[in-house]
């Protein structure tokens, strides 16, 4: 279980964006989080992805307390949680091919490719020809497919989707959500953040609405 208790999170000085938030992600379950822009849902996603340090509160991953965030989190904890970001174009290294983008987590954590890359790129519908291209040569939708494959390449136990589909068209949305649902069915715990209620209704097991 990936859980957070009594989170207080903010940026610089001023009022916290989140004040006293509890959340639990269970393996195999998809939690939908809906709310208008700037309500703090992306902030919560960043904390659960261990990418943003809360002012106070605790985050627990499978019974182990998380002691640090960003680089200070142990690599084993970071790689147990996959993340997909809202804007695929900002979330990939612009000089790499899509193939290098998908493989980057394997390279960074010195793991071997046991066929997972081929399996995932097929599942997201990226052909060999598309994988050889660089980000500026593909559409946002095709890039987001690569980003989802990258997030899943280390077989994370939890997946954080922060507005994964807000920049892509309906057909790509359906394809990405279908893949996330299939990994959830295999036991991955998913947090699906979106401003689109109708989408979360069709996607998540439970939907929490904020403000």
């Amino acid at each position: 279980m990936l859980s957070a208790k009594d989170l207080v999170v903010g940026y610089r000085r001023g009022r916290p964006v989140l004040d006293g938030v509890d959340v639990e992600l269970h393996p195999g379950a998809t939690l939908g989080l809906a709310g208008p822009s700037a309500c703090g849902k992306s902030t919560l996603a960043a904390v659960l992805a261990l990418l943003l340090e809360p002012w106070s509160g605790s985050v627990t991953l499978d019974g182990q307390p998380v002691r640090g965030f960003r680089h200070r989190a142990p690599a084993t904890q970071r790689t147990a949680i996959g993340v997909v970001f809202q804007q695929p174009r900002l979330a990939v290294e612009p000089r790499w091919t899509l193939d290098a983008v998908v493989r980057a987590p394997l390279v960074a954590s010195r793991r071997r490719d046991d066929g997972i890359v081929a399996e995932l790129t097929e599942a997201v519908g990226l052909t060999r020809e598309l994988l050889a291209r660089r980000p500026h040569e593909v559409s946002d939708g095709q890039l987001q497919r690569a980003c989802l494959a990258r997030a899943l390449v280390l077989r994370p136990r939890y997946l954080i989707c922060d507005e994964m589909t807000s920049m892509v068209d309906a057909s790509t949305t359906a394809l990405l959500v279908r893949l996330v649902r299939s990994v959830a069915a295999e036991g991955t715990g998913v947090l699906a953040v979106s401003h689109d209620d109708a989408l979360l209704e069709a996607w998540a097991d439970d939907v929490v609405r904020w403000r």
Partner: protein
Amino acid sequence: MRETSVTKTSVTKTPVANADTFTGTRQPASALTVDRLSVRFRLGRKGKAGIVHAAADVSLRLRRGRVLALVGESGCGKSVLTSALLGLLPANAQTRGRALLHGPGGDLDLCTAPERRMSRQVRGRRIGLVPQSAASHLTPVRTARSQLAESMRHLRGAASRSDVDALAERAGLAPASLDAYPHELSGGMAQRVGFALALAGEPDVLLADEPTTGLDRALVDHVTDGLATAAAEDTAVLLITHDLAAGRRVADDVAVMYAGRIVEAGPAGDVFADPWHPYTRGLLGALPDGGFEPIPGHPPELTDVPDGCAFCARVPDAPGPPCNGDPEPVAVGGRLIAGHVPC
């Protein structure tokens, strides 16, 4: 004079594309007729590196008081139309066909109109643009009010404080929030300021290019409602979007674009209730409340569009009317349909 005569001959030659195909009783007046417009880009230094066929033989008719939604996946070429209609295509672009802006002084072909005419009479005055991300279209160092007032002064000659307030209210913006700087505005408010700027010159035609991308549902509804209100005030509106839900909410007519071509068009209610083209079916079926089924494969590169029906090259055995391979839309029962003519 020359332009009018050419229009007449082309009407008789290509009745399909240009005639009143949406056979509602008593059609409102056309504001803009796009007649077999093609846009392509030559790549590379001398244009030898390839050709992007961004739009091929696109025909549309914008009517006063109606919203036409142009829908399609990202990269299908729909956004290039805004650039073409505003005379803002880059130098490596080439066009074919016409885009006629109708007005009391006769028709103006937007593809060949001189730059002076476009900048002094058309942009902002007769055609307004609602940009994709309004926040990036605003000057950060000045208040929304001063930017709106400047646009109004420039486009209408004069702008009193109450004129600016009235314009803001038309765009759904409280006059009190006009004194904020752009960074103090939320995304939705910035979008409304952008909308107010588009209305500042009281244009006959509004082009909205993906005005809802990245906005949350409540704001999307607000923006689309604003477009509907503008249409109700006798403006012709073209909404270019990949968000079918937004299109479905507000459109009177809809045109579906795939790989640079219009594959299906007609009254929005008819097309959304009973789509003929397999691509339209696929798009609707991909919505969360439509089955959530992705369309297999990828749209073709616009540098390499297959001959004939481009969608059948991607999904050969899609359900629906069989394909006759003709990429040209034909009129059937008040609608336009390419290739997949129902029996």
